[in-house]
């Protein structure tokens, strides 16, 4: 049996040379576990992420908005499936992953535990929530694990339409009536801080970051990505004529970045632990969909088995 230290050294050396790790390659258990946790969480986020937006499909204000929103939600289902399939290459079953989501062992992005109260929320989700997601996801295209990196390339290509359709909704509202502009500002006020929370805890409170950077699963720290996001959002907000709800937000000449206020981490942890406005509703909806779809999955399997049996019988008769 090969010495585990030698295997680990070889593994790290492969990563240091920017060579991808593929499913059948040797990898440390902790690397596999970290990836399963992160990729499945990511997949669950795509799936649960369909719910807040699905809420507005039937009430989209025009056919153009409706087909765009439908296509976006369909993409999210697709992204969830790319990611589940990447996760399964690590030797975990799809059913197991779904069970982990449904019984609360696996997390998904906390942002989806906030409600979508108005049509402006759909625009803001595209602009800020997808914007933050893209900031997180672009570096993941260079992740050391091949199947995850390849899935992310696909996701990122499709995601940019999501952000643009959201921003376009907001731009339209910003040129609308007084009531529409108020609705826009209100949505920005509610979603700004939760969007900043999407990058996760501050670096000092993020115990996994150092190891994930060493394994090149992560390329930037939470705070680096959050800063980048704030910096790009400021100009985009100006064009929409909205204010970002942070009195401490101002340009810092010395740093060459915007300073911004302290995030309410109590709220963040409350939502992570299940006490956000929609945690229960989201998981109940997912569970119900899964349970009510069970008969379809069983019937399809039974039909497939019957067809296979018939084919076998026919071919034996011919022979």
């Amino acid at each position: 049996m090969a010495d585990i230290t030698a295997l680990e050294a070889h593994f790290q050396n492969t990563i240091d040379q920017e060579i991808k790790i593929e499913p059948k390659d040797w990898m440390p258990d902790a690397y596999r576990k970290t990836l399963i946790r992160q990729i499945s969480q990511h997949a669950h986020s795509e799936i649960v992420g369909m719910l807040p937006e699905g809420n507005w499909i039937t009430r989209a204000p025009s056919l153009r908005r409706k087909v765009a929103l439908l296509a976006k939600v369909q993409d999210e289902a697709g992204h969830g499936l790319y990611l589940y399939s990447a996760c399964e290459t690590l030797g975990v079953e799809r059913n197991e992953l779904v069970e982990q989501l449904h019984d609360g062992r696996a997390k998904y992005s906390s942002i989806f535990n906030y409600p979508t109260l108005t049509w402006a929320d759909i625009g803001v989700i595209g602009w800020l929530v997808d914007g933050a997601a893209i900031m997180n996801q672009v570096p993941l295209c260079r992740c050391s694990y091949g199947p995850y990196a390849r899935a992310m390339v696909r996701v990122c290509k499709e995601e940019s339409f999501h952000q643009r359709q959201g921003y376009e909704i907001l731009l339209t509202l910003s040129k609308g009536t007084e009531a529409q502009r108020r609705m826009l500002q209100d949505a920005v006020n509610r979603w700004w801080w939760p969007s900043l929370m999407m990058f996760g805890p501050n670096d000092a409170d993020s115990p996994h970051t150092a190891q994930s950077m060493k394994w090149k699963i992560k390329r930037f720290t939470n705070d680096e990505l959050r800063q980048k996001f704030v910096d790009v959002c400021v100009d985009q907000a100006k064009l929409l004529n909205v204010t970002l709800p942070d009195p401490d937000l101002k340009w810092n000449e010395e740093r060459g970045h915007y300073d911004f206020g302290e995030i309410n981490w109590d709220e963040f942890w409350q939502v992570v632990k299940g006490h956000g406005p929609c945690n229960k509703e989201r998981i109940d909806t997912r569970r119900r969909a899964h349970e009510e779809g069970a008969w379809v999955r069983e019937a399809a399997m039974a039909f497939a088995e019957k067809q296979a049996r018939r084919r076998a019988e026919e071919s034996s008769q011919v022979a």
Partner: protein
Amino acid sequence: MEKKNWPLWEVFIRSRQGLHHKHAGSLHAADEQMAIENARDVYTRRNEGISIWVVESKHIHASSPAESEALFDPANDKVYRHPTFYDIPDEIKHM
């Protein structure tokens, strides 16, 4: 609670006429027909393909990374398999 999973299928897409089918990812489906239909929705929403192959994952046999030296090293020292190994006078412009 159903315990029987839909089997896993590997999906290969030909992006346009004249190119190989290329591995795109995998998905679950009850049978080959459903696998093709699901692959259409999952992997070709933006005209990425004009033809789909699906193969049940259990039918794929792969070489092991552990034996990659034994398999691929023998090609390393065979430079004479490449055209640049052979000296041809400069007067011959194209060969």
